[in-house]
């Protein structure tokens, strides 16, 4: 007899809020329909969920609200294909399926007492947002918090509603950048890895956490190494095409590791151990 619950069966949830972030990115806040399950729901920063639109399919998104704010679960979705397009057309009150939490998480415990440098590019800011908010909600546990967030243009920047707080609060330091000059833009202009080098953060007792498009990650890793960050002082999250999310369907492996179970969060030291198949 089955002893564990059915890992494929989603919980039904209601969309309670939706708003556009950029022309191609939209955010959804959902609440599980079963109030007890919602109350008991727990996850760790960095974990993901499979969102389903019944009749269209499922896709993977990071839960980008922090576990310290459990009024809803927030997912931010960039339009990429079938499921994401359908998600973009949903309205408040619509029903979706949620399978969460899945995967591993940022090592928020071992980061205690350390400084953290966040480097986010585009939609890659989503997983970082969870951990950043979590850390701000437990501010005394961590030392300096630095954020470098970049997007192609001001219009492509998600989480704009967070920016006034992040750029003005005294207990973190925020740098925003865009690729090319734009009218009215008062922050940096330049590619993320270059701006990072300029910022010149100290690697001492510090961990850098980066997420973004593959090309940005590649050059950000090089910049971090130049700045003296060791392989185990760099953390990133991987994207692979996923289906089951529970290590069975065989889709997301890199050698012996399954991104859905062993990831999506990896240190650079761990990545180096993996076969070269990113």
């Amino acid at each position, binding site marked *: *007899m*089955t*002893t*564990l619950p*059915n*890992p*494929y*069966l*989603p919980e*039904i949830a209601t969309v309670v809020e939706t708003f556009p972030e950029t022309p191609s990115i939209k955010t959804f806040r959902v609440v599980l329909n079963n109030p007890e399950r919602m109350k008991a729901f727990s996850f760790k920063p960095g974990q993901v969920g499979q969102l*389903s639109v*019944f*009749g*269209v*399919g*499922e896709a993977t998104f990071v839960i980008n609200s922090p576990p310290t704010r459990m009024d809803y679960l927030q997912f931010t979705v960039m339009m*990429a*294909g079938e499921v*994401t397009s359908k998600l973009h057309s949903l309205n408040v*009150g*619509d*029903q979706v*399926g949620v399978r969460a939490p899945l995967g591993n998480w940022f090592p928020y415990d071992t980061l205690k007492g350390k400084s953290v440098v966040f480097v986010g590019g585009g939609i890659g800011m989503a997983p970082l947002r969870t951990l950043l908010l979590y850390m701000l909600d437990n501010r005394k546990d961590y030392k300096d918090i630095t954020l470098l967030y970049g997007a192609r243009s001001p219009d492509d920047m998600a989480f704009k509603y967070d920016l006034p707080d992040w750029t003005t609060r005294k207990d973190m330091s925020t740098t925003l950048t865009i690729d090319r000059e734009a009218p009215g833009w008062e922050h940096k202009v330049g590619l993320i890895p270059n701006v990072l080098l300029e910022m010149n953060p100290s690697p001492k007792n510090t961990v850098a956490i980066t997420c973004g*498009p*593959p090309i940005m990650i590649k050059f950000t890793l090089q910049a971090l190494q130049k700045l003296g960050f060791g392989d185990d002082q760099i953390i990133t999250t991987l*994207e*692979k*095409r996923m*289906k*089951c999310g*529970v*290590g*069975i*369907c*065989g*889709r997301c*492996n*890199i*050698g*012996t590791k399954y991104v859905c*179970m062993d990831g999506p969060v990896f240190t650079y030291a761990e990545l180096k151990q993996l*076969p*070269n*198949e*990113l």
Partner: protein
Amino acid sequence: MAAKYLASEKLPAWLAELAASRVVLVPVKERDAVVFRPYSEGVKPVLDRQANVPPKASIFPASESLMSFKYIKNPEDLGQVAVEVHETVDAPPTVVFGGRPCDVRGFNIFDRVYDCPKVQDPYYKARRENTLFVTLACEDAENACFCHWVGSSPSDPVGSDVLLTPIQGGYLVEDVSKRGKALLSSKLLADGSKRSTEAKAVHKAALESLGEVWNPEKAPAKLLEKFDDMGFWEDVSAKCVSCGACTYLCPTCYCFNVTDERSGMKGERIRTWDNCMSYLFTLEASGHNPRPTKAHRLKNRVGHKFSYYPDIHEGIFACCGCGRCIKLCPVSVDIREIVRLAVERPTAKPEKS
């Protein structure tokens, strides 16, 4: 183990008896292929050759519903639509009759993934619990068989409930599991205790017919060593046409896809076999594909079976040596040759990427 004897002419009666209360899948000829189909009176099982298609679908159907869903409009407010989801586990009591040891052993490789402490697949598990295997030991190796390379043999009882061995006039029938013992209570079975030596001789001859053993114990490390040697992978995959037949016909390939089908207000979430030889398998939404060429994909297929899986699962290879991927590949890609070459050919220095 109790040894019983089944005379050949009593086989249809035994099958009928087994089929009275369950689905009995037997290998039968369908056009030019031998496939597993439900037994009914008059069906003639093909027992003198390995089926082209293994009985994988008995536990892991090529396509199955994971759940059904229904949208329900609120009659008071038509803008409000609720959704209901129902689990659909379908697991009729089944006997797989006449599979070969390799076919049946394949499920032991599934078990470690589909039913492990971390996660259990309820659909797989329900069918596994409701299915018995009456396996037929092989008399003679076929040209692509290599079960003896991967720790098995033509009379391997692992994973079976009952083992049949062809002997003069019929079969020696031995129980392997407790559930198998229950099947031996049939009055159609005679005492076979005096015929064990005959069966042992058949087992021995079959093993000898396989020829020399090649031990793949170095394969896991060597395949990893060759990971960046793309010249090697391009050589061994040059012929491959990415048809995926090798995965669909493999008793140990277990990857799947999940898709929704909707018609009107209801629909189903369906799981179907999928395969890592396909370009789309790993294509990401960004357009990036970590396995862009057939060489990358064949590397994953062979690597998974002979390196990654054994690394995670106590050295057990995710291949039972049935040889189907060799026999039925349209261009004769030979996994034995690839694994051997990976071990024996020196590794080229990886090019700088």
